[in-house]
């Protein structure tokens, strides 16, 4: 796989911003009342993310390290303003439903996170593909959450009603429903062991186990408890080091 495609695969599946890295929870919970809302929010974020990654990566050698966060925010905020005005002009309906959450893209952790963790260290083109991957992963996650919430809570799919009104479990289009759906989908993701930052693949884990290494989170909390003493010792050691210095 070319390194550009790998970025996209990484963003959509391996390090899905919503289900794996758990970033950008505010728009995830607040704007997914229907599949189309989730899709719209995802695309708006993608647009900002792609260009912010591109611009920040291009400027990465010019921006002084000490003021990088304000500099990133200026870049991101300008892009968000552009997206907001475009949406207001061309997709008025979506603009009205998403409301305050469009300007709030500025403080979306995914965008800041990718700028800091990826774009600031890699070439512009690669960063752009990282933005595309992360954005598509976010869009996909939001659309799936929105789809589930809309189907159970309002009995419709992309606005077409397919379940009669008596059977709508309307709590799902309200705030608690977002938590339910997100939790279940994340649990499913963990269960299916999509290989990710926190989920090693079966072979990797076995290889590590053989060497007596820690296996990361394999969904078994006892695994961490087995290493509790080791972790505590490390923490104590680190504390002493800090004290000395």
């Amino acid at each position: 796989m070319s390194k550009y495609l790998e970025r996209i695969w990484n963003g959509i599946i391996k390090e899905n911003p919503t289900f794996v890295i758990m970033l950008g929870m505010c728009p995830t919970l607040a704007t997914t009342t229907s599949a189309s809302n989730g899709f719209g929010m995802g695309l708006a974020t993608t647009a900002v993310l792609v260009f912010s990654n591109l611009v920040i990566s291009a400027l990465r050698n010019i921006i002084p390290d000490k003021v990088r966060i304000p500099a990133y925010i200026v870049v991101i905020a300008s892009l968000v303003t552009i997206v907001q005005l475009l949406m207001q002009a061309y997709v008025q309906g979506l603009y009205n439903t998403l409301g305050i959450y469009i300007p709030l893209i500025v403080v979306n952790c995914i965008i800041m996170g990718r700028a800091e963790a990826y774009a600031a260290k890699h070439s512009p083109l690669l960063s752009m593909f990282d933005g595309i991957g992360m954005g598509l992963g976010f869009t996909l996650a939001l659309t799936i959450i929105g789809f589930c919430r809309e189907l159970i809570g309002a009995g419709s799919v992309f606005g077409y009603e397919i379940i009669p009104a008596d059977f709508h479990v309307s709590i799902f289009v309200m705030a608690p429903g977002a938590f339910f759906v997100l939790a279940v989908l994340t649990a499913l993701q963990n269960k299916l062991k999509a290989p990710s930052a926190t989920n090693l693949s079966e072979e990797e884990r076995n290889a590590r186990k053989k060497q007596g290494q820690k296996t990361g989170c394999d969904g078994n909390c006892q695994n961490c408890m087995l290493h509790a003493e080791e972790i505590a010792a490390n923490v104590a050691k680190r504390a002493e080091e800090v004290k000395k210095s």
Partner: protein
Amino acid sequence: MEQTAERKKLAHVSSSPHFRTPVTTRRLMLDVVIAMIPALLWGVYHFGFYALVVTIATVAACVISEYVYERCMKLPITIDDGSAVVTGMILALNMPPQIPLFIPVLGGVFAIIVVKQLYGGLGQNFMNPALAARCFLMISFAKPMTDFTMPGAVDAVSSATPLAVMKAGESVSLTDLFIGNISGTIGEVSALALLLGAAYLLARKVISIRIPGMYILTFVVFMLVFSGHGLDPYYLACQVCGGGLIFGAFFMATDYVTGPLTPAGQMVYGVILGVLTGIFRVFGASAEGVSYAIILSNILCPLIEKYTVPTAFGKGRYVELTKKLLVENKDTKHVAKEGR
């Protein structure tokens, strides 16, 4: 291996407890079920056979979902401890009598799987499963959940619950309220039947009077001050008997898992419940507030317990005082030494 087995047999020193009480979860749950039977019987008599169908369906939904979940997750099967039956019964008694069957069934599945099992099963849930499910259903199916139509009435006119009538400023008959000749959910209507069950639970020492007593007392005081009716015994009695207060106080607030265990904590818990219920009933938009009051207090429970831990033997005020004096003496000696 053999040696250790032998040794174990010779000198088997296990850690405490060495004495075991005959009271098991099963026994407790059976008592609670028995205590709810008068209310259920009255509900069936008053609302008709369909109330029994609702109850059986809800209990079955709870037990089956517990079994299926534990089976799928390869956990020990615990349906025979009866806790799922109790959850199902409480949930069913909280349903209006004309409810379409799929609603309580969905509620039962939600109560057991989401509220109870996902948090680790019996003893781990932080919220009363039946009440959480009721609130879930109230939000999801607002219309059927508040439709207290009297079945069997000729025109099937929807009738308001006594609390709603009182909220509207009209008066109701206390005798009807006490016996249960009113509209409401299946289990909450008859104060008499509920008190019978409560007396059984108290006599069997399954529950103590602390939570329900403080709850109702605080509620009465709150209504006395804030309801705007002043010292009107008739109104107060109607407020206590109407709605789910008695059912909630004796059967739901006293849940071991979600309520405090310390005696002082139970008193505080009762006070909070009473105040919250009063606030919801007097200032809230809806006439009833018991279920929301109880699940809110459930969440406060760990905090209450934290501040009401009883003093263990040998750790009293005087011991602390002596320790403090000793420490102070040491300090002064220390200072004196350094001064020299």
